[in-house]
C-alpha cells in the first residue's frame, strides 16, 4: 500500500526557560492513502504537537524539529513556510476542538467560507458564495441560506463544527487532521459529526488523522491507531488488531481505566497511578516504568527500542503483553 504521509524519526523540542522540552521524539509511522488513523493518549502526551509537526507547521525560532515528513511525495521538512502553506486546502486541512477560536467572531459565516475558495481557487465573490452554500448542504446544515448570513455566536457548538468542516473540505483535501473535533460536543451531536466525517471521507476519498482521548471514538472511526505516551508513539497497529491483541502495557492500562457503559454499575475502576513524566526531564528507561505493573529492572535503566511484529504491529516495550518472560 502506498503511503500518503510518511513520518520518520520525527522529534520536536521546544526551548523553554526551564530548559529544552522534548514534546515529541522518535515517531515513525506510515499513513496509507484512504485510511483513517486515530491518535490517542493523555493530555500532554504530544498528540497536537506531533500533528502540527506532521503538517509542516511549527517553524518558530524556539522549535527544533528533527526527522522527515513526506506528504504525497513532498518532503515537508525541507520546504519553506510559504511552500507548506500552498499545500493547505487541496493537500491538507484541519479542524480543532473549539471551532470558536478558529472562526472570526465578527465576520459572517458566508464570507469566512468564501475566503478560502477565492484565495485558493480564484473564484469570484458570487461563485464562492454559491459554492459555500453547497458546502453547508454537504455538511448537512439545515437552512444554509440563513446560516451563510449569521455570525459564529449565533450557532450552536455542533453547527460551528459543521461550518469548520465545510471550510476544511472546501478545496477537496487529501488528508484531514481533526484534533479532538467532538470533545466539546454532547454525545448525540458527537455521533452526528462522526457520522458526517465517515460519509465525507468515503465520498471525497479523503484520509483522516483523528486525535482524541476517547478510545470509544477511535474504535468506531479509524483503521489504524497510534497510542502516544510522553512524546512517543508507543504502539501503532490496525484498530481491530490493537483492541484484540495489544502489546503495550500502557494501552492495556488506558483501556482498563475508562468507565464503560456495559460494566456492572458500582464496579470499582482500575487506575493508572501517578502521571506523565516531566517533559523537560524524560530520564533514562521507559517513561511508563514508574506506573507499569509489568516493569522490570531493565525498564528503569534502558529506553525501549521500537519493536516490529511481522505483521507491522509497532510497539516500544521490553516486556510486551503476550510474550513469555
Amino acid at each position, binding site marked *: 500500500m502506498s503511503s500518503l504521509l510518511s513520518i520518520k524519526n520525527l522529534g520536536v523540542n521546544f526551548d523553554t526557560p526551564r530548559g529544552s522540552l522534548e514534546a515529541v521524539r522518535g515517531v515513525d509511522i506510515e499513513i496509507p492513502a484512504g485510511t483513517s488513523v486515530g491518535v490517542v493518549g493523555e493530555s500532554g502526551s504530544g498528540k497536537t504537537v506531533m500533528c502540527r509537526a506532521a503538517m509542516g507547521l511549527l517553524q518558530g525560532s524556539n522549535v527544533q524539529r528533527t526527522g522527515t515528513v513526506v506528504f504525497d511525495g513532498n518532503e515537508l521538512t525541507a520546504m519553506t513556510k510559504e511552500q507548506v502553506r500552498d499545500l493547505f486546502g487541496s493537500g491538507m486541512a484541519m479542524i480543532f476542538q473549539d471551532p470558536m477560536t478558529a472562526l472570526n467572531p465578527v465576520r459572517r459565516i458566508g464570507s469566512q467560507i468564501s475566503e478560502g475558495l477565492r484565495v485558493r481557487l480564484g473564484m469570484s465573490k458570487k461563485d464562492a458564495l454559491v459554492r459555500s452554500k453547497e458546502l453547508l448542504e454537504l455538511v448537512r446544515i439545515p437552512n444554509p441560506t440563513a446560516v451563510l448570513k449569521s455570525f459564529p455566536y449565533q450557532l450552536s457548538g455542533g453547527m460551528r463544527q459543521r461550518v469548520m468542516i465545510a471550510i476544511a473540505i472546501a478545496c477537496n483535501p487529501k488528508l484531514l487532521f481533526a484534533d479532538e473535533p467532538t470533545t466539546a460536543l454532547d454525545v448525540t451531536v458527537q455521533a452526528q459529526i462522526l457520522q458526517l466525517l465517515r460519509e465525507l471521507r468515503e465520498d471525497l476519498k479523503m484520509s483522516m488523522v483523528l486525535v482524541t482521548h476517547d478510545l470509544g471514538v477511535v474504535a468506531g472511526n479509524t483503521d489504524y491507531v497510534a497510542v502516544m505516551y510522553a512524546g512517543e508513539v508507543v504502539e501503532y497497529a490496525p484498530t481491530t488488531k490493537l483492541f484484540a491483541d495489544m502489546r503495550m502495557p500502557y494501552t492495556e492500562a488506558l483501556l482498563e481505566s475508562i*468507565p464503560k457503559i456495559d460494566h456492572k*454499575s458500582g464496579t470499582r475502576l482500575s487506575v493508572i497511578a501517578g502521571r506523565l513524566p516531566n517533559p523537560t526531564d524524560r530520564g533514562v528507561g521507559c517513561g511508563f516504568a514508574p506506573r507499569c505493573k509489568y516493569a522490570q529492572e531493565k525498564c528503569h535503566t534502558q529506553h525501549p527500542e521500537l519493536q516490529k511484529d511481522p505483521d507491522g504491529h509497532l510497539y516500544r516495550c521490553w516486556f510486551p503483553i503476550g510474550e513469555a518472560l
Partner: protein
Amino acid sequence: MAGSGTAHMRNSVDSVLTVRDLTVEFKISKDKVVKAVSGLSFDVVKGETLAVVGESGCGKTTLARAILQLPPPNSGEVIFNGTDLTSLPKENLRSARTSMQMIFQDPISSLDPRMTVQQLIDEPLEIWGRGTREERNERINTLLNNVGLEPELVLNRRSYEFSGGQCQRISIARALALDPRMLICDEPVSALDVSIQAQILNLLQDMKDQFGLTMVFISHDLAVVKAVSDRVMVMYLGKICEIATPEALYSKPAHHYTKALLDSVPIADPTRQKITELLQGEPPSPMNPPSGCRFRTRCHAATARCAEHEPQLQEVSPGQFVACHHPIV
C-alpha cells in the same frame, strides 16, 4: 400540577433531600425568559448517589445551584434534613450550607490562586470556629491524607502549581472539611484526563463510604454515571424524562431520549459497533420549549398527543419511572 408528575417520589423517612416542583427561570430581556428548570421533583435518600444526566443546557448546573439557593429558585421547595431551604433566613441558610457542599467541574479555577492549600482548607474551619489552631491543623492533615495528598508536600503550595486531578483532590478535601452530609458534584471529572478520572471517581466513592455521604452527581457522561450511581435521572430541556436504577435504565431504557443517548455513546471495541438511527438535530431553545412533551421535535415516536399533553412520570417496571405517552416496552 405543572410538573412532570410525582409517582417516583418515595416520601421516605430516610430522605436527605426532597425537591418539589422546582422551577428556575432567567429573564434575559423584557420579553425573553429562559426556562432552565421547569417543575422538577425528586428525592435522594441517605447514602444514595443520584446521578443527573443530560446534554449541555438541559438545566443540570442550574438545578444544582438552585438546591444550594445560589440563586434561590423561582418557585418550589428544597427540603434538606427536614428544613425547606427556600424559606430559610440568610443566616440560617449559611449554616445549612455547611452540611451541603459542592464540587465543580473546573478544579483549577474553583480554588483561589492566592491561597495556599493550608489556607484553602483552613478557611471553612476557621469561619465556623471548628477547633483551635492546632486541632484545625491536625484536621487539615487528616483531610489531605484522606484524599491521597502528602501534607508536607502540598500544604504551602498554591493551586496553580498543581495538575487538574490534584486540584480536584484539594477541592474534595475542602468540601469535606465541615463534615457535610451531602455532596453535590457538578461534572467533577469532565475536565480531567481519562487516567485521572478513575482516580477521582474511586476517591469520591471511598469518601462516600467512609463518611456516609449522600450525593447528587451531575454528568453528561453515561459511562461515568453508570459506575457511580444508585439512581439515575435523565433530563431534557429542564424536565425529567426518566428516573430509574442504573441496571434498569441502561439495559431497558423506556424513554426515547434515554435510548437515543445510550445509542450515541461510543463503544471502545471495534467488533461491537452498533448501527443505529441517530438522533437528528439539536435541542430547541429553552426560551421557547415545545408544547406537550419537550422532546417531541426530535422523537421518531411522537404523535399528536405528545404535542397536546405533557406526559407525567409513571412506573413502567419496579423502580423505573418514565414521562412518555408511548414508552419503549
